[in-house]
């Protein structure tokens, strides 16, 4: 399969430089949180000794003058998603291989675009020039990736020699395998793909198992893994900017209600239900705030969606002044999204349950009580029955 690899090296760092051009003159480490751990997501190209996945402590020890910056992952993903969408406008087969790397299927598109060079040029144009994309073209994903590494910023490269000859000088570190396997390859003295290719497949497979067979084929420039196209997800999105940044969650509810009204009044939402709502907001001087609300049953109207979103955000403390908010309804379903019970009493109980749940949200606690016998045998009349909250 004829594949192009569009590679944007150091994408998070380049996006941060766009926000703060002064970072270009300094060394920066982009840090992400995993629970209590802080690890490196990306670093300046000049911080050679820092690699993704490294702990922040180790990274700062290796690069003492580097500035740690908290990752705004939502923003990076959003930017990359936009690029993937634009690539999707050029080819129906686009696969994301992680932040900053995408594979594009080129088969059958020459007639549409005249020639391959024109198509590659258009692919490069889908990425903003400040991100300096590199494009590699070859047969198979792995050779295309290596070709992209060979291309200069804003340029494309296609290997002219045979793929076995082209991949031979590359280090085994470029292989898309676990680092433990790479370490073992080095320990066996197999430092380049050419050295791996010289060995017969039998011993490699015996030593490394299934991974061994794959890396042997990659060492010969053979990658027949299929391109898995992105699933284009239909979604409806609306956003608004606050006149003044908000700090109270009650003001956020008003905004969410407004956005839901806009979305559900859209013709495309008629008779449609959504399973997931995503909220995003720009927080002054901090990473993007995000919240995902999953509806237990798909919702098809504003009131229902607002009720669930409010319940999910109840008691939430915003991380800072929110400058704007966007609401996206995802996983839109077809015309009918709800199945009711056949039995009337079950339906009534479900309706009652929903009504009580709504009251809980608005009142703060369940205001519905039922009379239950507690000590019906008691001689003291007020001990015989009590009011107990009703929870169907």
């Amino acid at each position, binding site marked *: 399969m004829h594949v192009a690899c569009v590679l944007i090296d150091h994408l998070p760092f380049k996006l941060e430089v766009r926000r703060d051009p002064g970072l270009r003159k300094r060394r920066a480490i982009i840090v992400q949180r995993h629970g209590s751990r802080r690890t490196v997501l990306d670093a300046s190209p000049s911080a050679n000794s820092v690699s993704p996945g490294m702990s922040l402590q180790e990274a700062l020890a290796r690069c003492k003058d580097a500035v740690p910056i908290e990752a705004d992952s939502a923003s990076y993903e959003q930017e990359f998603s936009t690029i993937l969408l634009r690539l999707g406008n050029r080819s129906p087969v686009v696969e994301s291989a992680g932040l900053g790397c995408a594979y594009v299927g080129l088969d059958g598109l020459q007639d549409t675009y005249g020639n391959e060079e024109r198509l590659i040029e258009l692919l490069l144009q889908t990425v903003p020039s400040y991100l300096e994309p590199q494009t590699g073209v070859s047969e198979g994903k792995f050779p295309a990736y290596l070709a992209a590494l060979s291309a200069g910023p804003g340029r494309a490269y296609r290997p002219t020699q045979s793929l076995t000859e082209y991949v031979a000088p590359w280090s085994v570190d470029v292989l898309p395998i676990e680092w433990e396997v790479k370490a073992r390859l080095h320990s066996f003295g197999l430092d380049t793909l050419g050295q791996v290719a010289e060995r017969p497949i039998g011993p490699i497979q015996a030593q490394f198992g299934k991974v061994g067979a794959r890396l042997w084929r990659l060492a010969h420039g053979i990658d027949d893994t299929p391109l898995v196209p992105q699933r284009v997800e239909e979604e409806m999105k609306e956003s608004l900017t606050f006149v003044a940044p908000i700090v109270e969650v009650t003001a956020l509810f008003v905004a969410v209600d407004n956005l839901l009204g806009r979305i559900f009044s859209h013709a495309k939402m008629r008779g449609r239900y959504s399973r997931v709502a995503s909220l995003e907001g720009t927080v002054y001087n901090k990473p993007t705030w995000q919240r995902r609300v999953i509806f237990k049953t798909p919702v098809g109207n504003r009131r229902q969606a607002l009720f669930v979103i409010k319940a999910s955000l109840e008691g939430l403390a915003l991380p800072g002044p929110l400058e704007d908010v966007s609401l996206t309804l995802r996983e839109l379903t077809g015309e009918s999204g709800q199945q009711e019970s056949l039995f009337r009493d079950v339906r009534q109980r479900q309706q009652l349950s929903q009504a009580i749940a709504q009251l809980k949200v608005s009142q703060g606690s*369940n205001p519905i*009580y*039922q*009379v*239950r016998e*507690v000590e019906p045998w*008691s*001689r*003291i*009349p*007020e001990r*015989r*029955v*009590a*009011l*107990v*909250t*009703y*929870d*169907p």
Partner: protein
Amino acid sequence: MVEDTRKTSGASDIRSLNQPITVPVKVDEDGSPSELRLRGKWLKVESVDDRWRIDDEWWRDEPVSRSYFTCVVDEGIRVTVFQNLGAKQWYRQRM
């Protein structure tokens, strides 16, 4: 009454019902109610249909000791009152 859901209730989910409320009462010479003050006015007790006494929870510092009277007041209204024999306070019992 709503159907029993069989769900376990928490302590904070229970409220008392039929709690007695204090009521001004005038008594005759044998200690029975002769007038009750209800809804801001004194009502004459036309007859006492029933009377009984309960003594319970003896283990408490203040055991429950009550003398009950079922009274018929103006227009045939039946009201149950009791006197807390410890504090000598009259209450209207809501059943």
